[in-house]
Each structure stands twice: as C-alpha cells, then as structure tokens.
C-alpha cells in the first residue's frame, strides 16, 4: 500500500518538531530510508504516521486517510517498531512474539502459533524461543522486536533504527530479509537509519529531513551527493558509485569541531 504525506505538522509540547512535510511517498514492495542528523524529527515523523504522536495534515495509506483512524484501527494496517526496545518483562521470546500477533488478530490458537514459529525461524531466533527477554543481549532483543513486527504482517512497516544494536553480520542479514519481505509481500517498509552506506545499499528511496523540514526525497543516486551531505550533516564526504555495486560513502571530516 502506497503511503503519501501532505502538509504534516507535529508539535511536542510548545516545540514544533515537524514543519509542513509534503510530497513524501513510500511505495509497496520498496524500502524507504528516512535519514537526517540527530534531532531531525525522524522518530517523531514515524510516530506521527503511527498515530502515537498527534499531528495535523494528511497521511494517506492506499488512499485512505490514516489520520482519521483510531490507534487501534491504524495498528491493523501498520506497525511502528521503536528504537528503544529494552524491557524488564518476565516473558519468553515466544510469548513476546505471540503477544504481538494476539494484539492484532483474533484467530485460532494454532494459526497464531504457526505464525510465531515462522517469524522466529526467519530471524534465526528458534534457539532463543524459551529464553526470557531480560536475559537477551541488545542485539538479540532487537531481532525479537523485528520478529514482533513481522509476525503482524502489516501493510506498512516502520522501523526506527532497527540495526543500531546489531553486529555487522546481523545488520546485513536483517536488512536483506526486510528487502525480500517487502518485495514478496508488497509491504511498504520505512526505516529510520543513520548508516548511509546501509541506506544506500538497501533502500529504493530516501527521505531526508533536517530540523523537522524536508530537505530531499528520491532514489539514493539522486539524494546522496557530497553537497547534500555537507548541507544536512555538516560533513565533507566522498561518495563513490562503483558500477554494479552498492554506493560507498566515506565521511572525511566534520565541518565544525567541538570546543576543547
């Protein structure tokens, strides 16, 4: 389902975080990476789409206005995976993933159990199925959170820094999985991500925001230019586009240094 955003504004208390975001589109079967510096409003944008933060403007999913739906109605169509997934809940991995499924659909127990098994298998979490969440490492917890997201099979899946706690192997594995999942299920996937190399490699489209304002959107080739990286991140960077290979961004130096 295609997502469109028009004239989106969001304030947290008296602080206006998102300013009139318009013309942002994410397509089914594709990965859209949301990039920008710290405090750009990436998490707030994803939360506003999910209905967790209240916002004004139009958010359309397959032509349907999400902003007129309740939190529960939205949760049947989309899922937002927050950046911080730490918890002290005394739940096993299997129970946690089952919980994510059960809060979405009423179905026979056997169907739910099979769905959980598939989700655990796809993220190689089977050996951890009985382990309690508190006993997991940050990276394992993050993979469980991704399993909780995919077990719901949302039309729109939004993940906030889903690879921040993962080692290199699992970063590539998870993003590759999400890419195949998006293609196979015609799922619209949006990732907020800091690693520009991973964004360039796995995303079909990028949204760039800075200080709550839209800076650019388009394919990685259109968006990731040294001039834009300079404007958005205040860095000098070398961008390389080798033929038949993912682009490589090498940060060279920060334009401003911290005071000594």
């Amino acid at each position, binding site marked *: 389902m295609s997502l469109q955003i028009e004239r989106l504004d969001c304030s947290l208390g008296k602080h206006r975080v998102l300013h009139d975001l318009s013309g942002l589109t994410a397509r089914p079967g594709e990965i859209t990476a949301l990039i920008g510096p710290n405090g750009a409003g990436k998490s707030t944008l994803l939360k506003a789409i999910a209905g967790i933060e209240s916002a004004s403007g139009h958010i359309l999913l397959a032509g349907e206005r999400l902003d007129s739906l309740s939190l529960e109605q939205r949760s049947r169509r989309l899922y937002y995976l927050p950046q911080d997934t730490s918890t*002290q809940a005394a739940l096993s991995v299997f129970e946690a993933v089952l919980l994510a499924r059960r809060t979405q659909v009423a179905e026979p127990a056997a169907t739910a*159990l099979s769905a959980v098994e598939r989700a655990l298998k796809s993220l190689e979490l089977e050996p951890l199925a009985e382990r*309690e969440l508190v006993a997991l490492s940050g990276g394992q917890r993050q993979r469980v959170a991704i399993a909780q997201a995919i077990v719901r099979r949302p039309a729109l899946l939004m993940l906030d820094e889903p690879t921040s706690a993962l080692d290199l192997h699992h970063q590539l594995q998870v993003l590759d999985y999400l890419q195949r999942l998006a293609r196979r299920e015609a799922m619209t996937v949006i990732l907020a991500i800091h690693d520009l190399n991973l964004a360039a490699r796995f995303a079909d489209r990028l949204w760039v925001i800075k200080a709550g304002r839209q800076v650019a959107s388009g394919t990685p080739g259109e968006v990731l230019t040294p001039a834009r990286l300079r404007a958005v991140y205040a860095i000098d960077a070398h961008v390389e586009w080798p033929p038949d290979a993912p682009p490589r961004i090498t940060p060279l130096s920060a334009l401003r240094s911290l005071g000594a």
Partner: protein
Amino acid sequence: MKATTISPRASAPQTTADRYLSRRRRQHWLIALTAMATLTSLLIDIGTGPGAYPLLDVVKTLAMPSQASRVLQVVVWEIRLPVATMAIVVGASLAVAGAEMQTLLNNPLADPFTLGISSAASFGAALAIVLGFGVLPVAGTLLLTANAFALAMLASLMIWALSRLKGVSVQTMVLMGIAIMFFFNALLGMLQYVASAESLQQLVFWSLGSLNKASWGKVALAALALLATMPIFIRARWQLTALRLGETQAKSMGIDVGRLRLRMLLCCALLSATAVAFVGTIGFVGLVGPHIARLLVGEDQRVFLPMSALTGALILSVTSILSKTLIPGILLPIGILTALIGLPFFVSLILRSRKENWR
C-alpha cells in the same frame, strides 16, 4: 544446551510451538498446585484456633454440616470459615491490585500499601474512632469500615486523577502515591496525638490489621469487588501484558494506554479500598504475592493474574494460621506478621530493582 543423539526410533524434534505449549502446561500445573495448597491452607486455618480440630472433621463439617455436632457446626460455619475465607479473598484482592499496579505503573514497588491507600484507610478509621466522624452517611459498626473505604477510595482516585493529566509519567504517579502516604500518615499522627488512651488503643489495634471481625456479609462484599473486577482484568489480559513492553510498543500494537491505565487503576482502587476497609492495614501481600507469581509463571497475564491471586490468598491464609499458632493462646495481629515476613523480601526487591533498572 546438551546435544541430543539421534536414533532411528527418535521422535520428530520438538518445534518452538511444542516447547511453548509444554511451558504453558507447566504454568497450568503450577497454578493448580498453588490452588490446592491454598485450599489445604484454608482447611488448616479453619481447624486451627483455641479448640483445634482434625482436618478430617473440618472437611466432614463443611461437606455434611447436618451430620456434625452443633458446636462444630457453629465453630466451623459461623466463626472460623468467614475469617478463613476473608483471608483468602483479601489476600487475593491485595495481590491482584498489587500485580496490576506494578504493571500499570511499571514499578516493582507499587502496591496498595506503598502508594498510600492503606495510610488513607487508617486515617479514615481514625476519624471514626477518635472523632466519631463519618465521611459517609452510615452509623454504628459500619462507620469505621465505611470511613476506611471512603478514604482508601479517595487516595486511589487521587492517583487515578493524576494519571488523567496529560504528560504525567508513571514515575510521577508513583511519587504522588508516596506523597499521599506521607500526607495521610501525618494526619493520622495528628489524630493519634489528640486521641484518648482508649481510642488510641482501638486505633492501633485496627491499623495492625485483623481478620477477626469478618462476617459473611463482609466476606460477600469483599468477594463481590474481586468478582466484579477480575473479568475486567481478564478481558484486558493481552493489553496489560503488552504494557510491560513499554508504552510506545504497546501504543504501536493499537493499545490506548491512557484509557487502559485509567480503567484498570479504577479497578485496583476498588479492590484495595474494599480489602483494607474490612481488615485494616495488611502490608506487603500486594507486593510480595505478585513477585512470587512473576518468578513462578512470568508476566503473561493469562497466568500471572490467577497466580498472583492465588499466591496472595495463600500468603494471607498461611499468615492467618501462623497468627494463631506462633504464640499459643495469643492471637497476633496479622498485619504485624505480613510485615515481618514481607520486609526482608521488600529490601531484597529494592536492591534487585536497582540492578535491573526498571524503566
């Protein structure tokens, strides 16, 4: 994990769902065992007292009252059963209220006692005992109970009202509970200061907690509060479990966290106010019961909720037996015993929660 040898006759390897189902079966067995232990404790509690009766006689009198002696009938059915049942109902109520308060406020130390509900009830009782003042238009023997209930409800509603304010964090709500506790303790202290020696003695006795004034009417009212709120908690079992994953993730699962917290806190308020009003201040059951349940079956509310109720009931029932048997011939106030048992547990929880860094 130990490697398994594969033999030609070996059965198919267990899937994750199979392993989950056996975990569920274990949880159900634990619940059944705790229920049996609670029932046994209830029977022993009935048999224990100034005149001790063998368990068999108690069971016979309960099953076939007409065939028992008149004395046994009166002792079992009219004197001891209401008290023993009250221990079960109040223990379950306090533990369920504690379990849900800990879940809703995301704090392992939340319970009706630590959030000031018991202190408020004590102040209500003091108003009746010391000043003869009734908060509700009732008189006679119900004055004290009605006052305690009204003030406990007021304290709970203060926390509940605070949770309705936008932007109030759960930490603020817990701190507010602690402030309520100090506030009502100060008011109670003031009344104790001006009370006559006789009133003071009565007030101290009430605030130490006692099951002895239980009657079938009081048991029915306390049970009614439990029976009315349990289905509400059971219906919200998935939402309550999801809340333990954090507010954002729960919202992402479509749960209106604010509304859920309001509804459930109101139920907790009713449960704890009813329990405290009938038996006085009984601390730590609402704190310790849920923690034992959590250790035994985890926090999936489908099993956590009944297990909390049962552990709370079992703790108070066993304490009731101890209160009659620790010093022969003397009935110790039950609140003292629960505090003595609960205190070491409470300290260990504080130390553990520092390590685990509850968020």
